[in-house]
């Protein structure tokens, strides 16, 4: 017998087989040890998809300390924002709110990457990302994040969306004439009233939309939208034949009142300090607050930024009373003149009437999310 056979006894083989089977079974429990070494590449597309869904289909969420129904984009403290989401509401996915988009891409409000990672990317691994939004008609996309890499793989998703704009109105001489916003007597203080019926705007009929599920895409929301009211051609409202000289006109006061649900009493309120300046005179670029002289051109715009009316009752009514003071120093006695005035008729209703108010428009846009 030679001495180099690789002989193994049967019991050794059996024992060794049982040992190996047990070893393999235990070893398959080990992959948990490899998690630290796992390749993240497979995960990037999943994270990009999830981020895309959160941004495009979710309206966002505020932190636990916020009271009332205030949306996240008007919160000043970033700790009050729990999750970003750009959709107008839960029932309107893919329709983004313009104010949320502006706030999301605002580099002074939130810093890359920590603020975004905690509020839209989520997860323990510090992913780097790039989120871009390009609206049709614009040249450059708005972006947040790093430049997308050329030479290594990244996860990617592209979503098509529409961005809902804001509403506005211009009260010019055609409208003034049509509604009769001109008084016939001579008064020094002429009052012009505007009504924003929040209850009707949020729950009333808005036209021919037959799907009540998705109507938030077309609604004006005084709580969070920007509202722009332009008043032009004010000089045309005077009686220039009876008063040929140019008088001094100033907007002496703007008063705000609201009603609460079920209660018809008027409660006055004033804008908070952050929103104090909202009047622009004669197409100026700086905002002022009343009283303000209207000069000779006599055009004024009031731009109520998102959040201006956030303290009002969502289902109440908002009244805005403008008081114009008109003096002609050459006239003695100075009994005032005709001017823009609707105390004798109904207030101007900021509602869904297309003839009076330009409704919010939807513009196409595309959003790309890249994660690596």
């Amino acid at each position: 017998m030679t001495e180099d056979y690789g002989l193994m006894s049967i019991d050794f083989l059996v024992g060794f087989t049982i040992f190996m089977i047990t070893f393999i079974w235990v070893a398959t429990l080990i992959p948990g040890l490899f998690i630290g070494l796992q390749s993240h590449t497979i995960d990037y597309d999943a994270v990009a998809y999830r981020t895309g869904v959160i941004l495009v289909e979710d309206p966002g969420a505020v932190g636990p300390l916020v009271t009332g129904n205030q949306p996240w984009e008007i919160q000043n403290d970033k700790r009050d924002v729990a999750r970003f989401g750009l959709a107008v509401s839960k029932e309107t996915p893919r329709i983004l709110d313009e104010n949320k988009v502006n706030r999301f891409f605002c580099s002074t409000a939130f810093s890359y990457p920590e603020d975004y990672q905690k509020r839209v990317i989520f997860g323990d691994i510090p992913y780097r990302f790039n989120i871009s939004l390009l609206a049709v008609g614009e040249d450059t996309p708005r972006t947040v994040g790093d430049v997308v890499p050329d030479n290594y793989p990244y996860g990617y998703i592209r979503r098509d969306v529409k961005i809902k704009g804001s509403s506005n109105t211009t009260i010019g001489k055609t409208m003034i004439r049509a509604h009769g916003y001109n008084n016939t007597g001579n008064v020094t203080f002429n009052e012009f009233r505007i009504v924003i019926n929040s209850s009707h705007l949020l729950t009333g009929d808005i036209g021919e939309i037959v799907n009540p599920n998705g109507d938030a895409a077309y609604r004006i929301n005084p709580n969070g939208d920007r509202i722009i009211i332009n008043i032009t051609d004010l000089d045309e409202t005077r009686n220039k034949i009876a008063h040929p000289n140019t008088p001094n006109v100033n907007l002496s006061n703007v008063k705000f009142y609201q009603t609460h649900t079920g209660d018809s009493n008027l409660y006055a309120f004033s804008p908070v300090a952050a929103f104090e300046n909202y009047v622009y005179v004669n197409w100026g670029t700086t905002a002022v607050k009343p009283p303000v002289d209207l000069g000779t051109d006599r055009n004024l715009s009031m731009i109520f930024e998102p959040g201006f009316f956030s303290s009002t009752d969502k289902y109440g009514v908002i009244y805005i009373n403008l008081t114009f003071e008109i003096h002609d120093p050459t006239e003695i006695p100075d009994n005032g003149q005709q001017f823009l005035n609707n105390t004798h008729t109904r207030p101007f209703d900021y509602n869904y009437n297309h003839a009076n108010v330009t409704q919010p428009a939807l513009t196409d846009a595309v959003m790309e999310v890249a994660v690596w």
Partner: protein
Amino acid sequence: MAGLKDDAQWIVLMGFVVSFSLFFIAIVINQSTVIGQTTAEAVLEFPKDDIRGVRDVIIQSEFLDNAGIFKNKTNVQNDIRTLSLSRQNSVVNLSSTPPTAGNPYSSIDIHYNNGVTVYNEIWRSK
């Protein structure tokens, strides 16, 4: 067996151990590609847009009139059931309650089942 030279046993044994460990590592690495696959497949399999689309069209159909020879609401709802079954492989059941004197809201009972995902909802108008 005493007296047999045992050196070759060790070589064979070590060969076994090495091949087993290579086998194991190969399996572990192989499983990693499956992670991406199951994520994408889970997204494709969940009929999110199908459910949203059917729900929206059912709510729209609820506000159609049912008058005259056209019977719009009945026809549209029958179309929805038939087309869902044949083109989207899903069974859609719906029953609606129009507003009455005591209850000014309409409500729709929607059931959707595509064999894998089941969705039930009672939708009430505002």
